[in-house]
C-alpha cells in the first residue's frame, strides 16, 4: 500500500489503564490500515484535570513537553486518542502561540525552543487523514445490524475557536465515519451533552443521572450501540451503567464502543482482539454475520 | 538556433512584427550583446545560449524602440527574444500599462540556465544565482517557444543563505554593512538604466522640486537613493539581477532585491510578473492582509 500515513502517537494515561482496550483497538486498526504510529518518547501527563485547574503554567508546560518531545522525534502530526489529552495539547499550543511571555516561560522550564510544528489530531481527524476511501476499502464486514448513537462529549469540540473541528452543537463527522462500516447512525439529542466527566470519582450520583439521561435518549431514538471517542466518556457511559442499574432498576443497558473498536469490527477483527470483552456492558456481534 | 532565425525571418518577412529585439554574438561565442533586427536577412545574426544575459525587456519601453513599431500610423508588434525569467518583466510591464499584450510578440525558450559572467562554461559553480531558485524554466507567456529542458546544474542557494544570515546580525551591524556597500555608490544610475521596471519619464532622484533624493554621492544621498530604488521595486522587481550586473562598483543589489522578493512571497504569496489575471501587489489590497507590526 502506497501513501501510508505516518503519525506520532500520544497514548496518555487512560490508554495504559482504564482504556486499555482503546489503545489496543487503535493500534490494531492502525496497523490494518497501514498507518504507522510512532509513540512519543518518554511522554508524560498531558496536564489535564488536576493540573490545569491548579497551575496554569505547569499544565501548559506538561502539555508542551510532549509536543516538544514529538518535535524532537521529527514528527509533524500526532494523534491523541483521548479527548482530554487532545484538548490539553491543542489548547496549550494555542496558549503559547498567543501569549509570547508564557511561551518564553515554558521554554525556560523545558530548556527547549517551542516551534509548534506538530499538528495534534483527535481520533476522528486521524481517520479523516487516513482517508474515507482507504477505510471503506478495508471494510470486510457490514455492520448493518448496528444502530449507533455517536457521542462526542465536550472536549473533542470545544472551544471551537481552538479546535476548529466540526460544529460544536451539531457535529456530524463521527457519523460520516461510521457510515463507512455499514452501521446506521441514529439522529438523537445528546451528542454533546455533559456526561459528568471527572465527577465520576467524587460525585457518582451526578454522573449516574447525567449519563442515564444520555443513554436513555440514545435508546429512545433507536440506538442499539453507543460510539464514543474519549476514555472519560466511556467510563461514565459504560462502567457507570452498573451504578445506574442499581439506582434505576428499570434501566435498559446499552453497549458502548470506542470508535476504533467499531471500525476494528468492520475490518474483520474479533471482539477479543479489540478488547471489547473488557467492557462492563457486554457486546458481541451476531454470529451468523461472521 | 536555426529554428529561431528562420522564425524571426518569417515573422519579419510576413510583417507580423516590425522588429525583433534579440541577442547576437559579441566577439566570442561565449559572449552576446543585444541587437535589434528589422530586416529579415539580418535574422541570421540571432543567437540564443547560456550567454544571453541581458534582460531585453528593458528596451521595450524606450521611445526609440517603440517608434520602430509605429508604421504608417498604425502600431505593429515588437518581437522580443526573452528568457522565461525575462518574460516576467514583459508581463509586469503589461500589468503596469507600459505596453499591451497584443503589441508584443514573445519568442521564448525552455531555459537551461545562464552563466554568471561571459566566458565561463555553465556549471554548478558558474551558473547565475537567479537560476538556482528559478520557478519558471518554461515561459509562462509566449507566442513562440523553442528548446528543450535539460537538467540544471545544481548548487546551493548561497544568496538566500547570505540573506538569512543577516537575521543573526544586530541592526547596527546590518546598517554598517549596507552603509559601507552604499558608500561605494558613484550615482552613475547604471542600475536604473539596466532595470526593465525603471521606465519613469523622470526618475524620483532627478526631481528637484522638492528634492527627493540628495543627488551627491555622499553617505546620505547614497543611502536614500539605494533605499528608494529598492522600495520602488519592491513587489515589482522580477529578480532578473540586471542592476547588480550593471553596477560598476559591485554593490550587492541582489541581496536587497531578493530579500524584498522573499517578503512579497512570504507575506502575500506574490511573485511579480507571473500572472496577467491577478492584480499587482502594489495597487491592490486584501482586507485580511497581515498587520501584526501595527500597534
Amino acid at each position: 500500500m502506497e501513501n501510508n500515513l505516518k503519525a506520532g502517537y500520544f497514548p496518555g494515561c487512560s490508554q495504559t489503564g482504564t482504556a486499555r482496550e482503546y489503545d489496543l483497538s487503535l493500534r490494531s486498526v492502525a496497523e490494518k490500515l497501514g498507518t504507522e504510529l510512532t509513540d512519543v518518547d518518554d511522554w508524560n501527563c498531558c496536564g489535564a484535570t488536576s493540573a490545569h485547574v491548579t497551575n496554569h503554567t505547569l499544565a501548559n508546560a506538561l502539555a508542551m513537553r510532549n509536543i516538544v518531545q514529538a518535535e524532537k522525534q521529527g514528527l509533524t502530526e500526532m494523534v491523541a486518542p483521548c479527548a482530554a489529552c487532545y484538548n490539553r495539547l491543542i489548547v496549550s499550543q494555542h496558549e503559547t502561540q498567543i501569549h509570547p511571555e508564557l511561551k518564553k516561560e515554558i521554554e525556560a522550564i523545558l530548556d527547549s525552543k517551542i516551534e509548534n510544528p506538530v499538528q495534534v489530531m483527535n481520533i476522528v481527524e486521524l481517520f479523516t487523514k487516513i482517508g474515507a476511501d482507504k477505510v471503506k476499502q478495508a471494510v470486510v464486514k457490514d455492520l448493518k445490524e448496528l444502530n449507533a448513537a455517536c457521542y462526542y462529549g465536550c472536549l473533542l469540540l470545544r472551544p471551537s475557536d481552538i479546535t476548529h473541528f466540526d460544529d460544536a452543537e451539531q457535529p456530524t463527522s463521527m457519523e460520516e465515519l461510521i457510515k463507512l462500516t455499514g452501521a446506521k447512525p441514529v439522529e438523537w439529542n445528546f451528542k454533546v451533552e455533559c456526561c459528568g466527566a471527572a465527577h465520576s470519582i467524587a460525585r457518582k450520583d451526578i454522573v449516574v443521572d447525567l449519563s442515564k439521561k444520555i443513554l436513555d435518549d440514545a435508546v429512545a431514538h433507536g440506538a442499539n450501540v453507543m460510539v464514543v471517542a474519549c476514555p472519560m466518556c466511556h467510563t461514565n457511559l459504560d462502567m457507570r451503567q452498573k451504578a445506574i442499574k442499581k439506582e434505576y432498576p428499570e434501566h435498559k443497558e446499552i453497549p458502548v464502543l470506542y470508535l476504533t473498536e467499531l471500525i476494528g469490527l468492520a475490518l474483520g477483527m474479533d471482539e477479543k482482539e479489540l478488547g471489547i470483552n473488557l467492557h462492563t456492558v457486554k457486546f458481541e456481534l451476531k454470529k451468523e454475520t461472521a | 538556433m536555426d529554428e529561431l532565425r528562420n522564425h524571426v525571418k518569417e515573422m519579419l518577412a510576413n510583417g507580423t512584427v516590425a522588429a525583433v529585439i534579440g541577442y547576437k554574438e559579441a566577439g566570442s561565442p561565449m559572449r552576446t550583446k543585444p541587437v535589434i533586427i528589422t530586416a529579415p536577412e539580418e535574422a541570421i545574426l540571432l543567437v540564443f545560449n547560456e550567454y544571453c544575459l541581458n534582460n531585453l525587456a528593458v528596451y521595450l519601453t524606450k521611445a526609440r524602440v517603440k517608434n520602430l513599431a509605429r508604421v504608417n500610423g498604425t502600431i505593429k508588434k515588437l518581437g522580443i527574444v526573452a528568457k522565461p525569467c525575462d518574460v516576467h518583466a514583459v508581463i509586469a510591464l503589461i500589468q503596469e500599462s507600459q505596453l499591451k499584450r497584443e503589441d508584443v510578440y514573445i519568442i521564448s525558450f525552455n531555459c537551461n540556465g545562464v552563466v554568471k559572467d561571459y566566458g565561463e562554461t555553465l556549471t554548478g559553480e558558474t551558473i547565475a544565482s537567479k537560476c538556482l531558485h528559478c520557478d519558471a524554466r518554461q515561459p509562462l507567456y509566449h507566442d513562440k517557444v523553442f528548446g528543450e529542458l535539460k537538467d540544471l546544474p545544481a548548487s546551493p542557494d548561497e544568496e538566500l543563505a547570505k540573506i538569512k544570515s543577516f537575521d543573526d546580525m544586530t541592526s547596527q551591524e546590518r546598517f554598517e554593512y549596507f552603509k559601507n556597500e552604499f558608500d561605494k555608490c558613484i550615482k552613475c544610475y547604471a542600475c536604473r538604466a539596466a532595470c526593465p521596471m525603471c521606465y519613469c519619464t523622470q526618475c524620483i532622484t532627478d526631481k528637484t522640486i522638492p528634492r527627493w533624493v540628495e543627488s551627491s554621492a555622499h553617505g546620505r544621498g547614497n543611502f536614500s537613493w539605494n533605499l528608494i530604488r529598492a522600495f520602488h521595486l519592491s513587489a515589482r522587481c522580477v529578480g532578473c539581477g540586471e542592476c547588480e550586473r550593471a553596477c560598476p562598483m559591485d554593490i550587492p543589489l541582489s541581496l536587497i532585491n531578493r530579500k524584498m522578493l522573499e517578503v512579497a512571497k512570504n507575506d502575500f504569496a506574490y511573485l511579480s510578473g507571473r500572472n496577467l489575471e491577478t492584480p499587482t501587489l502594489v495597487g491592490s489590497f486584501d482586507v485580511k492582509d497581515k498587520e501584526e507590526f501595527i500597534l
Partner: protein
Amino acid sequence: MKIGVFICHCGENIGRTVDCPRVSKAAEWFPGVVHSVDYKYMCSDPGQNMIKDAIREKGLDAIVVGSCSPHMHEKTFRKAALDAGINPFLCEMANLREHVSWVHDDIEEATQKAIDLTRMAVEKVKRNQPLATIKVPVTKRTLVIGGGIAGIQAALDVANAGYEVVLVEKEPSIGGHMSQLSETFPTLDCSQCILTPRMVEVYQHPKIKLMTYSEVEKVEGFIGNFHVTIRQKARHIDASKCTGCGLCITKCPIRKKAFNSFEEGMAYRPAVYVPFPQAVPNIPVIDETVCTYYKNGKCGVCVKVCGREAIMFDQQDKLVTEEIGAIIMATGYKLYDISKKPDDSFIKGYGEYGYGKYKDVIDGLQFERIASASGPTSGEFKRPSDGKEPKKVVFIQCVGSRDDSKGFSYCSKICCMYTAKHAMLYKHKVHDGEAYVFYMDIRSGGKMYEEFVRRAIEEDGVKYVRGRVSKVYEQNGKYIVKGEDTIAGMPVEIEADMVVLATAMIAQENASTLAQTVGIPYDKYGFFNEAHPKLRPIESTTGGIFLAGACQSPKDIPESVAMASAAAAKTMVLFGSDMLEREPVVARVNELLCGGCFYCRKVCPYSAIEVREIKDRNGVVIKEVAYVNDGLCQGCGTCTATCPSKSVELMGFTNEQIFAQIAAL
C-alpha cells in the same frame, strides 16, 4: 512673501502652559515672517479683526494662526483671511492647544514645542498655493434604494417637496418587511392597514418613478452628479398590458414547489405570483426557476388564460441609466438565519436551538406570519408541524445578538418589544395558553414601550424568565427547552409546543457589496456607516448619499420613518442651491512627467483617475497619462504616495509643503 503669525492664548487654555509672548517673539525671527503677535482670543471678533487689519496694513500674503485644532477653527480663520482679501488657502494653523498646552505640563517643553509647530506651519504656508473652491452643478433628482417603510417615507417626502424621485426595490412589490408584520407595537394596530395607503400613494405620485424587481448595478459620479445604472429584472410580464386580474396566478399548475419568501417558507406560491394580495404594483412575476415552461417549453397555461397577451416568456433584463443628484439608502435588514453556519468565521450559529431541524422552532418573522390574518393560518395559532394549537410557547430573546461568542455583539434593539408583542398576541388568541419569555435584560426605551411590556407581564400573564437557554430538543412531540432562571438561581426545563426565537436583525444580504457599488463605508457587520455617530447620523461619509432605516443599524418603524424624513430633508438642503462648492483639496497630475503606470488608478478609492491619451501630430497615441477628475477626487492622496515618479500631487498637501515641514522640525 510676507507672513503674519498670530498666537492665541485661548484665555488660559494655551497661555497657562505655553509662554505665548515668547512664541510670538520667536516667530518674528522666522524667515518670511514680518508680523507676529499674541492675543487672548484669536477667534473672537476683536481677534479676527486683528488678523484682518494686519493683513491689510502690513500687506501680508499668508498667515499662520497658532491656536486650537484646525478641525475647530480652520474655517473661521480662512474666512477672516478671505475677508481681508487673501486667498483662504494661504492660511495655516499650528495646533497649540489640543497638541501642546492640554497634553504637556512643563512650560519650557511646551513652549519649545509650540515654537517648533509654529515654525513648521510657517514653512508650510510659504509653499501654499492659492486655490479656488471647485463648483459643480446639481441634478435635482433623488434615488431611493429600497422600498420598505423607510424608502417609501423618504420617497414621498422628497416628491412632495417637488423633486423627482426614482424608487428602486429589488422585490416585485414595495412594502418591505413591514408588509409581513401582523400588528405593530406598542399600539397593536394592523401593519398592513397603515402601510397600504402609503404604498398606493407612492404608486400614484406623479413625481415618483417606481422601479420594482430592479437592482442598482453601478453608481458612477459624485454628489449632485451621479450616473446610476439600474437592472430591471425580467418579470416575463408586459407591465403595460397587465391589468392585475390575477387569472394567471390562480390557473398556474405549479402549486407546491416554490418557497414563498413572503410567508417565510411556511407556504408555497405558484410559479407566476405577486408576493401578497396588496402588492404595489399589482403585476405578477414569473419565477423562471420553477416555471415548467422554462424547463421543457411546455405548459403555457398562463398564456392561454391571459386576455391581454401580457405574458412574455422571452423578456430580458433591462439596464436603465438615471441621472441622480442624491441617493438615499433604505435597504433595510434581514433576520439572522441561525440554522446554517454562515461562512463568516465570527458567526457560529445556534445549532443547539434546532432551528431548521424542528418545524416548530421558528423565528420572529415566521411568528408574524402565523399571527397575521392574511398569513398561512389565517391568523389562527397553529404550529407548523401538525397544525395543532400550541398550548405552551417559549420565546427566546437575544438569539444572535448581544452574543460575542456565537453571534453579533450589538443589541438588535427591537426584539424586546416584538417578543412582548408576540407573547401578547398569542395570549389574546389562546386564552388557556402559556407564554414564557427567556430574556437577558428588557430594553424598552421609547414612548409607551415600557408600559407595553408591563402590560404583557401584568395583564396578559406572560411569564418572563431571566436567563439563557442552553438547548432545545424534541421528546415525544414536545420541545424541551433547557435554560437557567438566573433570578431563582435554578436550571429550568419547559416542555413547549412551539419555540419562537427572537433572532437578531442583521445587515441585508450583499449589503457590503452594494455599499462598495455605491461607494459608502460599512461596519464589520455590514451596516452602513454614518458620517458621525452623533452629529451626522443621516449622512454617509460620501457626499450626497444619505442613510435611512435599518440599513444603518437595527431600528423600529418610528425610528426608520423619522430617519427617512431626515434623509429627505438632507437631499432638499442639497437641492436648495444650483451649484455645489467643494474644498479644492484634490490631486493633480503633472502630465509631462507621468509615466503612465496607472498605479494611481489602481489605488484610487473613488475611481477618480482617468486615462488621457497624448497624441502626436498624426493623431497616433504616443502616451497615456493619468488625469484626475475633480468631481470624483475626494483628496485622500493615496495616489501621491503610490506614484513612483512623483507626478501627482495633492493640492494643499503637496510634497513640497510636507518636506518643508519636515525640514523645519
